[in-house]
C-alpha cells in the first residue's frame, strides 16, 4: 500500500478497538515469568554451553600477547574465541568499532575474547585466567580538549545537514535589543536497560539461528550475515521479547557475534549475556555534548535571531549527536543558523539513545528559552506561544502537517496551576524546602519508514499477524492486535500476534519513536489485502463489504469471517510505503512539560514533586500503553536532569561508573507523581492510522523543565547536566 495522499475515512476510524486503553496482551506472560527472553530459551535449545566475554583493559593500543593456556585448561572450557582464531570477519554497516577487537584495541571493554564452557560459572572463572599484555597508546578522551580539532560531520540521511543558515544571523543578533549567549553541556548517558544484551546461537550446518534481544531484526540480520560473510538467507534472527532497549539494541552487538562464533568453535549452541559491568563501555551510549545557543529578540519577545551549535565526539568514522535538530523547526525567527561539529574521541562508540538529537538538544534549548523569557520579562509559556510557527522556519513553503503546540502549552498551564507560579525565583518556601515550578516545550520529529506484515485467516475466524516488528516493552503486541482486530472486525481474542523473527516480513522495527505508527500501518495494509481476498472468496465486492463482529456483511447478507477460509488458510502480505507527504509537510510531535521541584535549603538535594506532560502525537492507538511510554520517558528525562552521567576517566579513557550502583537512574521515590494528557488529535498526513510517535516525545524537554524548576526554586541557574547539588550548593542561601 502506498500512502501518498492524506488519509480519509477508513476502517480504523471506527475506533472500536484502536484507541481503547486495553491491557497489554503479553502482560500475563510477563507477570508469570513465562515470556521467552533470549537468555532463557530452554524451549528451543536444551543444553547450551555458556560464553563469557573478556573486555579490553585499555582504551587504545594493541594486544601484544595473549596467553590462553591457563584458561583453556580450566575445568569445563570448550573453546576460546579471539580475533586471532575467529577467521576473517567483516564489520557491520551500523557498527563503528569492530565487535571483536584485537590485536588493535579501539575502546575500553571492546570484546577481545569469548570463553565458552559447560557452565556459566566455569566460563566466568576461566575468563579470569586469560592473560593479556597490552601496549597502550595515548588517546583522545576529553571532549572539551578535543574541541579545537573538531570538524564538520559527514552528512547522511540520519544526521541531516551539518550546518543550516537562513537570513543573516550574525547581523540580526548584533542588532537585537535583547540577547542571550550561553553554553550548555550534557554528559554521556547509558541506556541502562534491565535486560542485558543477550544471545543464544545455534548452527545447523552453515545455517545460523540466533535468539537475541534486538530492536531492529532486519538490521541485525544483515549485519550479522555481513560480519560473518554469509548470505542473509542463512541467518535467522529471533527476538520476540526484549527487556528494554532505548536504542542500545538497535544494532548488532558483541553478544550476537560472539555467541555465533562461540557456537561454531564449540560445535554446540552457546549463549552469551553481556556482563553488566561491560555494558557501559562495550556497547553504545548517548554522546556528551557542548552546546552554544544564541537568541536575539525584539522587546516584545519576537525572536529575530536564533543559533544553535553543538559539539560532540565519537570514534573515528562515527557520527555526531544531532542536538541541533529541533532548533531548525521549533520556533520562528527570520535569521537562523545551526551547526554541528564532531571531534574524534577514543571513548566507546557513541550512538542513538532514546530521542537522539532532540533529547540532549532540548535539554539545552529549553533552558535557553527560559532564560530568555526572564530577560524579556515574559512568562515562559507566553514567550513560546509568541514564537510559534505553523511552517518549517527554514523552508516556509512547508507547513506542519499538524501543530497544536499552543494548545499543549495552554492546557498544561491550566492543568498544572501555572498561574500560581511566581515569576521571580526563590520565592516559595515550605519548611526546609525551596519550591520551584517551571516548564519546557516537548518536540520530536515523526519519521516514516516502510513496514511490512503478513496476516493469516483460519476457518475459525482467527487472524494471525506476523511481522519482524519488535516489542521492547512498549506495547507493540497490543497495538498490532488492536489494528488487526479493528480492520478485520474481530474481537481481540481472535487475534494472534507473532513478532521479532527474520522469517517474517520486514517492518520499521523499534526506534526513533517510529515503530508504532509505521508497524501498525504495515499491519493495516496487510489486513486491507486480506479483506480483499476474503471478499473475493465470499463473492462480495470488497468495497461494500463490512467487517465487524467476526462477520462479513453486504446488505442483509452476513457470513462468518472464518467461512472465507473454509477451504484453507488465507494469507495476505503487504507493506506500507510512503510518498512525499513528509517532504511536502513537516511531521512532528509536540508537547509541554510542567514540573514542580523542592530543593532542600541546607543540602541542595533536588526532589521532583510532580510532573505533567501534555502531548500531541496524532491518534493515540492505546492510551494506556502510550501513557506508560510517556511516564517512562519523563522518568528517564528526570534521570538526565538530576543524576545520570557516565563519568569519564580522561586519563584512562573509559566510563568509570559502569554498573547500576555507580550509574544511578531514578527510582520510584524520584518520580512521585506523574500525569499525562494526550490531545485528541489525528494527523491524516502521517499514515492511514493517523498516528505519530510518542515514546520519545515524552523525554524531550523534561530535563530542561527540571533544570528550570531548580532555578525557579533557588535562583541558581545551572547549565551543566546532571544538575547535582555539588554544582550549586555554595550558591544557595545560608541555612539559618
Amino acid at each position: 500500500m502506498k500512502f501518498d495522499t492524506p488519509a480519509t475515512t477508513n476502517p480504523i476510524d471506527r475506533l472500536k478497538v484502536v484507541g481503547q486503553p486495553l491491557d497489554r496482551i503479553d502482560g500475563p506472560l510477563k507477570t508469570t515469568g513465562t515470556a521467552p527472553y533470549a537468555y532463557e530459551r530452554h524451549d528451543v535449545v536444551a543444553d547450551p554451553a555458556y560464553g563469557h566475554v573478556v573486555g579490553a583493559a585499555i582504551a587504545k593500543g594493541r594486544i601484544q600477547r595473549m596467553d590462553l593456556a591457563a584458561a583453556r585448561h580450566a575445568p569445563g572450557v570448550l573453546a576460546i574465541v579471539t580475533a586471532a582464531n575467529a577467521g576473517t570477519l567483516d564489520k557491520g554497516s551500523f557498527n563503528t568499532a569492530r565487535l571483536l577487537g584485537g590485536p588493535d584495541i579501539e575502546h575500553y571493554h571492546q570484546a577481545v575474547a569469548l570463553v565458552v564452557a559447560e557452565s556459566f560459572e566455569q566460563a566466568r572463572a576461566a575468563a579470569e585466567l586469560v592473560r593479556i599484555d597490552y601496549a597502550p597508546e595515548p588517546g583522545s578522551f576529553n571532549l572539551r580538549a578535543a574541541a579545537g580539532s573538531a570538524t564538520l560531520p559527514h552528512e547522511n540521511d540520519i544526521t541531516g545537514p551539518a550546518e543550516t543558515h537562513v537570513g543573516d544571523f550574525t547581523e540580526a543578533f548584533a542588532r537585537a535589543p535583547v540577547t542571550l549567549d550561553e553554553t550548555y553541556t550534557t554528559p554521556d548517558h547509558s541506556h541502562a536497560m534491565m535486560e542485558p544484551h543477550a544471545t543464544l546461537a545455534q548452527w545447523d550446518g552453515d545455517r545460523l539461528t540466533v535468539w537475541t534481544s534486538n530492536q531492529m531484526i532486519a538490521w541485525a540480520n544483515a549485519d550479522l550475515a555481513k560480519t560473518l560473510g554469509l548470505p542473509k538467507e542463512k541467518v535467522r534472527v529471533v527476538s520476540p521479547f526484549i527487556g528494554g532497549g532505548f536504542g542500545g539494541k538497535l544494532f548488532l552487538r558483541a553478544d550476537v557475534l560472539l555467541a555465533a562464533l562461540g557456537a561454531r568453535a564449540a560445535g554446540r549452541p552457546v549463549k552469551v549475556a553481556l556482563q553488566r559491568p561491560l555494558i557501559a563501555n562495550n556497547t553504545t551510549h548517548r554522546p556528551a555534548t557542548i552546546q552554544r545557543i544564541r537568541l536575539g529578540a525584539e522587546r516584545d519577545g519576537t525572536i529575530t535571531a536564533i543559533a544553535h551549535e553543538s559539539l560532540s565526539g565519537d570514534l573515528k568514522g562515527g557520527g555526531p549527536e544531532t542536538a541541533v535538530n529541533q532548533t531548525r523547526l521549533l520556533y520562528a525567527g527570520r535569521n537562523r543558523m545551526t551547526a554541528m561539529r564532531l571531534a574524534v574521541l577514543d571513548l566507546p562508540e557513541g550512538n542513538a539513545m532514546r530521542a537522539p538529537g532532540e533529547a540532549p538538544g532540548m535539554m539545552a534549548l529549553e533552558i535557553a528559552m527560559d532564560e530568555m523569557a526572564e530577560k524579556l520579562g515574559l512568562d515562559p509559556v507566553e514567550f513560546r506561544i509568541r514564537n510559534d510557527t505553523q511552517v518549517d522556519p527554514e523552508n516556509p513553503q512547508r507547513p506542519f502537517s499538524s501543530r497544536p503546540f499552543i494548545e499543549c502549552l495552554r492546557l498544561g498551564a491550566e492543568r498544572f496551576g501555572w498561574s500560581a507560579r511566581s515569576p521571580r525565583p526563590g520565592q516559595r518556601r515550605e519548611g526546609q524546602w525551596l519550591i520551584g515550578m517551571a516548564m519546557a516545550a516537548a518536540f520530536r520529529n515523526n519519521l516514516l519508514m516502510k513496514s511490512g506484515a503478513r496476516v493469516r485467516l483460519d476457518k475459525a475466524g482467527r487472524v494471525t499477524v506476523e511481522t519482524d516488528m519488535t516489542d521492547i516493552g512498549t506495547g507493540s503486541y497490543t497495538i498490532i492486535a488492536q489494528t488487526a482486530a479493528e480492520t478485520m472486525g474481530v474481537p481481540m481474542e481472535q487475534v494472534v500476534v507473532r513478532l521479532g523473527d527474520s522469517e517474517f516480513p520486514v517492518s520499521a522495527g523499534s526506534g526513533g519513536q517510529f515503530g508504532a505508527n509505521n508497524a501498525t500501518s504495515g499491519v493495516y495494509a496487510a489486513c486491507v489485502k486480506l479483506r480483499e481476498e476474503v471478499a473475493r472468496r465470499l463473492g462480495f465486492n470488497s468495497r461494500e463489504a463490512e467487517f465487524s463482529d467476526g462477520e462479513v456483511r453486504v446488505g442483509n447478507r452476513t457470513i462468518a469471517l472464518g467461512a472465507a477460509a473454509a477451504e484453507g488458510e488465507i494469507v495476505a502480505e503487504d507493506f506500507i510505503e510512503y510518498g512525499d507527504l513528509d517532504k511536502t509537510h513537516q511531521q512532528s510531535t509536540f508537547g509541554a512539560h510542567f514540573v514542580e521541584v523542592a530543593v532542600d535549603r541546607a543540602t541542595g538535594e533536588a526532589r521532583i514533586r510532580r510532573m505533567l506532560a501534555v502531548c500531541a502525537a496524532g491518534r493515540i492507538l492505546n492510551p494506556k500503553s502510550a501513557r506508560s511510554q510517556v511516564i517512562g520517558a519523563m522518568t528517564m528525562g528526570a534521570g538526565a536532569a538530576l543524576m545520570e552521567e557516565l563519568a569519564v576517566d580522561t586519563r584512562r579513557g573509559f566510563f568509570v561508573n559502569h554498573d547500576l550502583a555507580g550509574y544511578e537512574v531514578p527510582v520510584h521515590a524520584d518520580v512521585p507523581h506523574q500525569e499525562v494528557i494526550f490531545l485528541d488529535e489525528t494527523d491524516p498526513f502521517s499514515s492511514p492510522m493517523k498516528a505519530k510517535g510518542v515514546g520519545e516525545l515524552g523525554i524531550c524537554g523534561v530535563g530542561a523543565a527540571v533544570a528550570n524548576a531548580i532555578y525557579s526554586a533557588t535562583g541558581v541557574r545551572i547549565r551543566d547536566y546532571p544538575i547535582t547539588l555539588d554544582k550549586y550548593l555554595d550558591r544557595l542561601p545560608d541555612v539559618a
Partner: protein
Amino acid sequence: MRSFSYERAASPAQAAEAAIHNPGAKFIAGGTNLLDLMKLQIEAPPHLIDVNGLGLDEITPTEDGGLRVGALVSNTRLAADMRIRCDYALLARALLSGASGQLRNKATTAGNLLQRTRCPYFYDTAQPCNKRQPGSGCSAIGGVSRQLGVIGTSEACIATHPSDMAVALRVLDAEVETVRADGTCRRIAMADFHLLPGDTPHIETMLEPGELITAVVLPHPVGGRHIYRKVRDRASYAFALVSIGAIVQPDGSGRVAVGGVAHKPWRVEAAESELPRGAQSVCERLLAGARPTRDNAFKITLVERTLRAVLNEARG
C-alpha cells in the same frame, strides 16, 4: 568466581578455628556484599564458612542496661526492634536509609560493618587499586573521585566506608564483640574497629585473621534527639554523598559522626564540645586537616550545611 569449598560452622569458636586453618577463608553471613565481590573476583576465598544458624541472631539485654545485638541479626529486624526504635532510634534510622528492603532482609549486623568500599575503581579489576591489589597504585587519585573520601585519606587510598549503620554505631559508642581462633573473646570499641587506609588500605579493621564477630554491644541508652540525615543524589537506594548521625541533648550538648567522608565513620570527640556554638565551629575541628579532591571538595560545605540543618532540627 573461583570455585570454593563450603562448610557450615558448628559454633562461633569452631568457625573462628576453621577460618584460621583455611588460609584465605571467609565467613559468609547474608552474602549481599561478599557474593557480589566474588563474582567479580575482587574477593576469591577458597573456602567459605557459613555462620548462619549459630544462634547469633538474637537481641538480648545486657547487665548494664544496654543491648547485645547478635552478629547475624538482619538489618531489617534490627531496625524494627521496638527497643532499638525507642532507645537507639539513630540506629534504626541509619539502617532504614540504607540499601533496599530486600537487601536489608539479608544483610546482617556483622556483614554490614565489614562491607567493602564503593570506590568504582575497586570494582574494575583491570584498574590499579591498592585496596584490591596492594602495591598496584590508586586509580582514584587524579581520577573520578566525587564519591570518595576527604579526610583521613592517604597517598595510597582515598576510599570511604559506605555503611550507614556504622555511623550510628560510632555515635552510640557501640562495641564489637568477637571470638578468636584460640577461643578467646574480646570487645573492640567502634572508635578503634575501622582503620584509616595509611599505606595498607587492604587492611580495613582491627580483626585478626579468623576472628569472628559475634555481636555488637550497645551501651545504656543516652536519651536525646536522634537524627540521621543522609544526603544523596537520588531519593532512595543510593549510597551517601555524606551522612550525619547525631544525638543532641536538650542542653545542646551531643555527639556527631559523619559518613561518606572517610575510610571509617568520622567522629572527633573534641569537636563535639563545639556543638552549642553551631555547625561551623564543630566542622572547623571535625574536618580539620581534610584533603579533598577537586571532585569532592563540595563535601566539606555539604557536611557543614547538613550539620546546621540537623542542629536546627534538634532544636526545633
